[in-house]
C-alpha cells in the first residue's frame, strides 16, 4: 500500500518530461517576445529622435516635399520632407496590387475549379518557383529588361513608378495567388453542387457563389500582397531611379521609403540628423505594416460573421 502511495506522490518520468517541455517552450516564447520588443524600442526611439532631438516638426516631415537631410532651408529648418517617398511607396503598392489581383484570381480559379489537375502540378510548381526567386534577381531582371523596355516605349530614363510596378506585380502575384487558392479551396464543395443543381452554369456558380463566399479570404490575400509590395526594398531600388522627388508621372525617377533606406543608410553617421531621418522612414514602414496586419484581422473577422 505504501509503495503505491509513494509512487502516486512522486512525480513520474512523464510529468518531468512535461515540465522540461514547458520550460523550453516558455523560454523560447519569452526570448522572441524580448526580441520583438527590442526591435520595436530601437526603431521607435531612433525614429522619434528626429522629432525630439532634432526638433523637426512632425507635420513638416510628413507633408514636406524636399528631402536633403544634410541641408537646411531658408528658415534654417532641415529639409526632411518624406512625402515624395510616402506617395511613391503607396503608388507602387496600390498599382501593383491592382494589376496583380485580376491575374491572381484568374490563375487561382483555373487551379482550383476549372482545371484542378493541371493546377496541382504545373501551375503550383510555377507559383512556388516565383516565390523562391530572390528579390535581387527580380531587380536585376527589371533593370536589364523592364527599364530599357519602358525607356524604348516612352522615352526618358525608364526608371520610375511604372517599372517598379511591373517588377512588384511579378513579385506579389505568387503571394496573392497562393492565398487566393487557399481561400477558394476553403469554399465547401457542396456550394458548387447546390448551385449547379439549381440550374446554374459553372461561370454563374463561380461568379455568384464561390467568389462571393471567398471574398474575405481574397481581400486578405490582396492585403498580404500589398504588405509585401510595401516592404520590398532591393528589387524596387534597382528600377525606381532613387530620386527623392515628388513623382510627376509614372515615368519619372522616384524613391520609395524602402529604397531610400537602403540607398541612404550606408552614407550617414549614426546619431546624426540624416541618420535619424532614415530611422523615421523605418518607423513609418513599421506603422504601415501594423496597419496591414490590423486590416487582415479586421477583414478576417468580418468573414467569420458570415459563417
Amino acid at each position: 500500500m505504501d509503495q503505491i502511495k509513494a509512487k502516486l506522490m512522486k512525480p513520474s518520468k512523464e510529468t518531468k518530461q512535461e515540465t522540461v517541455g514547458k520550460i523550453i517552450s516558455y523560454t523560447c516564447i519569452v526570448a522572441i517576445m524580448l526580441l520583438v520588443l527590442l526591435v520595436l524600442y530601437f526603431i521607435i526611439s531612433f525614429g522619434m529622435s528626429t522629432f525630439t532631438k532634432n526638433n523637426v516638426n512632425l507635420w513638416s516631415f510628413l507633408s514636406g516635399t524636399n528631402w536633403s537631410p544634410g541641408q537646411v532651408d531658408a528658415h534654417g529648418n532641415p529639409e526632411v520632407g518624406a512625402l515624395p517617398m510616402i506617395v511613391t511607396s503607396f503608388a507602387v503598392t496600390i498599382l501593383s496590387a491592382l494589376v496583380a489581383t485580376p491575374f491572381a484570381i484568374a490563375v487561382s480559379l483555373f487551379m482550383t475549379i476549372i482545371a484542378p489537375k493541371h493546377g496541382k502540378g504545373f501551375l503550383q510548381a510555377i507559383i512556388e518557383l516565383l516565390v523562391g526567386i530572390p528579390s535581387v534577381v527580380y531587380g536585376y531582371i527589371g533593370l536589364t529588361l523592364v527599364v530599357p523596355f519602358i525607356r524604348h516605349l516612352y522615352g526618358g530614363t525608364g526608371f520610375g513608378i511604372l517599372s517598379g510596378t511591373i517588377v512588384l506585380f511579378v513579385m506579389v502575384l505568387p503571394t496573392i495567388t497562393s492565398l487566393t487558392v487557399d481561400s477558394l479551396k476553403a469554399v465547401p464543395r457542396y456550394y458548387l453542387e447546390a448551385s449547379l443543381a439549381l440550374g446554374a452554369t459553372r461561370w454563374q456558380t463561380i461568379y455568384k457563389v464561390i467568389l462571393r463566399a471567398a471574398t474575405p479570404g481574397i481581400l486578405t490575400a490582396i492585403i498580404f500582397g500589398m504588405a509585401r509590395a510595401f516592404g520590398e526594398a532591393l528589387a524596387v531600388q534597382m528600377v525606381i531611379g532613387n530620386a527623392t522627388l515628388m513623382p510627376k508621372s509614372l515615368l519619372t525617377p522616384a524613391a520609395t521609403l524602402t529604397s531610400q533606406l537602403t540607398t541612404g543608410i550606408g552614407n550617414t553617421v549614426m546619431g546624426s540628423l540624416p541618420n535619424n531621418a532614415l530611422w523615421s522612414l523605418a518607423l513609418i514602414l513599421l506603422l504601415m505594416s501594423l496597419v496591414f496586419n490590423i486590416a487582415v484581422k479586421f477583414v478576417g473577422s468580418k468573414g467569420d460573421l458570415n459563417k
Partner: protein
Amino acid sequence: MTDKVITSENVRLYYGEKEALHGVNLDFKKNEITALIGPSGSGKSTYLRCLNRINDLIPEVTVTGSIKMDKQDIYAPNVDITELRKRVGMVFQQPNPFPFSVYENVAYGVKLAGRSKVSKAEMDKIVEDSLKKAAVWDEVKDNLNDSALSFSGGQQQRICIARVLAVKPEIILLDEPTSALDPISSYAIENTLLSIKKDYTIIIVTHNMQQASRISDQTAFLLDGKLVEAGPTKEIFINPKEKETNDYLNGKFG
C-alpha cells in the same frame, strides 16, 4: 394509372472501369413520392444523382442505358444540362444553404435565368410562396435578411427545399434529407413533402425504413447496385416478393 414522368431502362454507371450500377429499370409516376431504400453502398444515391446529371461533376463517371423524362433522353448529346436541372431540383443530405441571407438563397435560382427580368414585388412573392410551401415561412419571415446559416439544421434544410421550389421544378430529388436532423425537424420535413406532393414528383433516398413507409407511394429496394424490387409501398412492406427485401426490412442485415 397516372402517367410516368421518368422512365429509366438498364441504367449502368461506371466509376472508371468499375461498374457501380448494374442495370436499373425504374419508372416514376407524376405526383407520387418514391422512396429509394437500401443499405449503405447499395447505389441508391448514385442512381438518384443520375437523374439530374449531377454525377457529371465526377470526371471518370460514365452512364449507359436510357433515362427518359417526358420521352426525352436526358443523356442525349444536345440536352441543355442547366435546363434539365431547373426541371429536376435536388435537396442534399447536409443542409447546404449559401452563406447569404434567406431571401438571397431562395431568390438565387430565379435570378439565374436572367432573361426575363423579375421585379422586386414579383421576387418578394416568389420568395414568400416558396418559403410558405416549404413550411418554414413563419419561422423566418421576420429575419429574411439574416444569414441562412444562422438558423437550425431543420430550418436550413427547409430553406434549401424552398430554394428548389422557387425555380418551379417538376421533379424534386432528395438525398437523405433528414439523416442529419433530429426527429422533430425530420417530421417537419416529411410533412412539407406530403403537402407539396400534389404539385411535384418526388424521389427520396432514405436510410430510414419507417420514413419510407410513412410518406412514399412507391418504394424501390436497391442492393449492391442492383434494383431488387420496386412496387407500391404497402406491397413492398407487407408482402415483399424477394427474400432479400424481406430480410432487409426485418433488419436481418444493413
